[in-house]
């Protein structure tokens, strides 16, 4: 079975975020890139599925130089092959163009299942898995917290508001991973050493057949301006013993904040 995993290199979630000059993006100076946390669950699920059914796993990442370490991290965890989709045309893509690039890399590869995180942290769009499924004509289950597959059909469970949904479908499929799906393994030293020697295939827009079809004038959603959130007004600490604190708090919530 051929299994693909799409991963995104994102700024470390603990990074302090500053806006770059021009206000179109964040300032990447000094920012460390990591595998988007939800993608770690996707990698783990791919490895588990290969352990169960056998096959071949390929990790795919679109972006610039920041992808290399992220792809090596996937290889170190046990993924077999890595593909880096890298082209100047791929900078600043919206979700639909991103899905088109990924689809171009997956569609003729004979993949039966594609795992990816339910959202890339940072952009926080949570759109690409569903778009990719549509472009590939695959079934989908997004934000999966449980997953089972026998090689031709799959079952997935997802959290919705106040309930769980149980999904059954047939392969090929795109599955997006929610926290709770599994406990990702960490790469061991042997894996890290082996990953260093592995080759990362690099494909550009021409090789993928998407030259002139993504980015630039094809973009449908672009960032006009990025800004920091408005500062919250200075709050206040309520003094006194707990009885006094509680009665003052209730009073403020009623008469000042009007939320009780």
């Amino acid at each position, binding site marked *: 079975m051929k299994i693909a995993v799409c991963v995104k290199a994102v700024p470390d*979630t*603990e990074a302090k*975020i500053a*806006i770059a000059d021009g206000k179109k993006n*964040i300032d990447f100076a000094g920012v460390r890139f990591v595998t988007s946390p*939800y993608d770690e669950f996707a990698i783990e699920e791919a490895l588990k599925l290969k352990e169960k059914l056998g096959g071949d796993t390929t990790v795919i990442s679109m972006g610039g130089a920041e992808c290399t370490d992220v792809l090596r991290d996937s290889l170190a965890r046990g993924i077999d092959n890595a593909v880096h989709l890298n082209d100047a045309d791929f900078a600043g893509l919206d979700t*639909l163009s991103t*899905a088109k690039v990924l689809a171009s890399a997956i569609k003729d590869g004979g993949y039966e299942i594609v795992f990816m995180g339910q959202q890339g*942290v*940072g*952009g*926080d*769009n949570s*759109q*690409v898995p*569903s*778009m990719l499924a*549509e472009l590939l004509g695959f*079934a*989908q289950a*997004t*934000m999966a*917290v449980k997953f089972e597959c026998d090689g031709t059909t799959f079952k997935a469970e*997802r959290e*919705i508001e*106040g309930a*769980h*949904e*149980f999904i*059954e*479908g047939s392969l090929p*499929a795109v599955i997006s991973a929610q*926290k*709770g799906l599994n406990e990702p393994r960490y790469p061991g030293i042997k894996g890290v050493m082996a990953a260093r020697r592995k080759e990362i295939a690099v494909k550009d827009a021409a090789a993928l057949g998407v030259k002139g079809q993504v980015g630039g004038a094809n*973009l*449908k*959603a672009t*960032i*006009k*301006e*990025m*800004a*920091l*959130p408005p500062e*919250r007004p200075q*709050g*206040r*600490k*309520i003094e006194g013993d*707990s009885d006094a*604190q*509680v009665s003052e*708090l*209730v009073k*403020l*919530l*009623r008469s000042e*904040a009007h*939320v*009780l």
Partner: protein
Amino acid sequence: MSQGILVFVEQRGGQVRKASLEALSEAHRRAAAVGGDVSAVLIGSGVKGLAAQLGKFGAKKVLVVDNAALENYSTETFTQALTEAVKKVSPKYVFAACTSMAKDFIPRAAARLDAACVSDAMDFVTEGANLCPVRPMYSGKTFGTYSLSGDLSFITLRPNVFALSEAGGDAAVEDLSLEISAPKAKVVAVHAAEGNKVELSEAAIVVSGGRGIKGPENWPVLQGLCDALGAALGASRAVVDAGWIDHQFQVGQTGKTVSPQLYIACGISGAIQHLAGMSSSKVIVAINKDPEAPIFKHATYGIVGDVLEVVPKLTDAVRKLHEHN
């Protein structure tokens, strides 16, 4: 030329989601700038009776795709129904509440129609007849204002952010009958989760607990306050990772994002990834015994004290208040 706004109105089990009515209200407010009418689309089985009430929230027309095959939500069937409705109405924008259903199928519908898609809008800037959605990025550490191009764009709106308003009138109800294609994957069952009676992401008040509650045996203390306030219970990542409570309760970067009127953080230090999930709350109350906890920098009102001492007293005070009213 496409014009107007089509709002996908979500229902489950015959209940229209409040967040969808918020999206409809916002569409009504933006309609004058955009031009054209506001219409709504209801998708399900036996849902026609829900259509007429949408008029007062601003829908001039309600398209109803009523089909036994749409009884349960499934990605592909709802994608088909929505995209057919879009083709019929030719709106400039499609709005939907940003819920787990919308997150699942709205991007698929956008890809089918080769349209822009922007999730989780919290505001709009208008540029002539164009809407520029403003949305949080990097878990709310920044906000991006988007320019949209093309004749059609899909936008999902964060629940609890846009005001409900009943400024509309009567709606014309119209059937859209379709042959629903068999999906490759479908929802076979929906089981209610043991959890909040009020959905966390839509609750007006949220009470969240962290390490400061000392152990999972103390959740009833917070649940008591939730019951008194009609609030939903939330939790920090630390206590979810420690196994004190299920992930569905987690607020923050790898959990849910909430924007309630009132957020009460109990024994939560205020890690960046937690703040990401709740900093857009209108009023934040922090109760923590560490006066240096970062949460106090973000709190409207702070109480330095032991959660297990303060919360029961607060619960009593709220109960008394309700008895008096």
